[in-house]
């Protein structure tokens, strides 16, 4: 295995991870909820009385993050290789998959692993495995 030292950013990634952890802790302790993004978003498509507002507000906070970040520092540069067709297929897979699997990187990955939930460990192992295999196929078998 070769490490990509040029792109390795342990400190900013750790700091960002700690912030994600702080947000998860805030949501849990103050609001008694799990900060699982796919669940929060998906719940908007299954509207129940009294269960909409907090979801919308959370998503608004998430949407506003780049604007607030941009006030303090330039946004990190991003690079998106995927073309439009790939983005659509990927988006559909992520949408369907996270709802069938009841969670994504935040709900299963961060919250579930923090709770030492066997169910979330299996889910996390599943999406990590599929992520590794997909990138291997796209980058090294096809590409």
């Amino acid at each position, binding site marked *: 295995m070769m490490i*990509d030292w040029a*792109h*390795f*950013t*342990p400190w900013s*990634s*750790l700091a*960002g*991870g700690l*912030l*994600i*952890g702080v*947000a*998860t802790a805030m949501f*849990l*302790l*103050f*609001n*008694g*909820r799990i900060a699982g993004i*796919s669940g929060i*978003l*998906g719940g908007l498509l299954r509207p129940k009385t009294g269960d909409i507002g*907090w979801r919308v*507000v*959370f998503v*608004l*906070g*998430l*949407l506003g*993050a*780049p*604007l*607030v*970040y941009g006030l303090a520092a330039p*946004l*990190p540069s*991003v690079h*998106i290789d*995927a073309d439009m067709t790939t*983005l659509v297929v*990927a*988006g559909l897979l*992520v*949408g369907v998959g996270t709802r*069938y699997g009841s969670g994504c990187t*935040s709900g299963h*990955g961060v919250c*579930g*692993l*923090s*709770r030492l939930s066997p169910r979330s460990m299996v889910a996390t192992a*599943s*999406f990590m*495995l*599929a992520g590794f*295999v*997909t990138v291997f196929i*796209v*980058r090294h078998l096809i590409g």
Partner: protein
Amino acid sequence: MQVLMVLLTGLVFGLGLIMSGMTDPSKVIGFLDLAGKWDPSLAFVMGGAILIGIFAFRFAATRPQAILGGPMRLPTARHIDGRLVLGGLAFGAGWGLAGYCPGPALASLAAGGSKPLIFAIAMLAGMAIFEIQDRFSQLPAKKAA
């Protein structure tokens, strides 16, 4: 107060995603590319978040209620089934294809560009397909019950 806290939480979560590098699909794919030049940064994101998460969930277990009132809504599902694994596999495949998972996709929208927008619309469509299919498949079960 509750509303303000939820807004702040979403904001801090998003700032963390941006700072961590999760909103850069090439960085995510660099982490998933074990056979190429591997960028281990995202392991530090996960590690940092779980480090705080472990203490938060331990502390939460000792509290009967959330600080701002209301119950602690911890997940109750324990079962491990095909749905969990297949859903995870489908999600992982999409994640590997584009380099976006749900949170970073949302936290990328306001930064502009049509690509995160296309992804987010497709993701919502995928979630809607699940809702329709799920409701449809529950109909006979409800009748039987």
